[in-house]
């Protein structure tokens, strides 16, 4: 799967995107967040406040309970502030 990070999530993780093979036991977005959080301080800091993190799967807004697959593009970012 392709992972994308924007704004301060990108800054805290130190990456704008990365490839990841769907880890064992990861079914939902929440599982993915738990997996990423365990990878290091940058990830932990990015995901420490769940309400402040939005997710999109294949460029559509999604919920943390939505399932993810190995072919998905999953993006994490703060609430949008354009316009």
């Amino acid at each position: 799967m392709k992972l994308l990070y924007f704004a301060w999530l990108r800054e805290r993780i130190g990456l704008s995107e990365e490839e990841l093979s769907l880890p064992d036991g990861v079914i939902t977005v929440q599982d993915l967040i738990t997996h990423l959080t365990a990878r290091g301080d940058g990830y932990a800091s990015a995901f420490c406040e769940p309400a402040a993190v939005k997710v999109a799967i294949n460029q559509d807004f999604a919920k943390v309970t939505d399932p993810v697959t190995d072919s998905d593009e999953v993006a994490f970012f703060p609430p949008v502030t354009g316009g």
Partner: protein
Amino acid sequence: MIRVQREDFDIAAEMKALTGARTDIGALVTFTGLVRDDSSAPGLKAMTLEHYPGMTEKKLSEIEDEANRRWDLTGSLVVHRYGRLEPGEQIVLVITASSHRGDAFEAASFLMDWLKTEAPFWKLEKTGDGETWVDAKVEDEDAKDRWQKE
């Protein structure tokens, strides 16, 4: 039509492109959003707009389609810039054309409200104190919600 671009836009040229030689347009509404040096960020030096290429275009197109479903428009345009912008610079342009002013006004207002909460852009403000990511506003969610109730 929607466009995401780094360059500035020319409102008069965009209006002209939208109307052309048509004579069935009675009302044209434009909304221009500018970088504002407001009191909550004194001494704003610049703002950098980050976005999610691909999803931005997808969401803007969906929002524009929805506006055209809800109102009787003869044309519409959304242009949103990204990158580094200074106070007073143009950020976003919405144009709606219709036979009647009510449709043009409502559609433009709807486009802005939806864009504010649905289009994946993030603002980083640079002041004398450093850089800060702008927080999303509850009012923007409320502004979007009023279109659901109808």
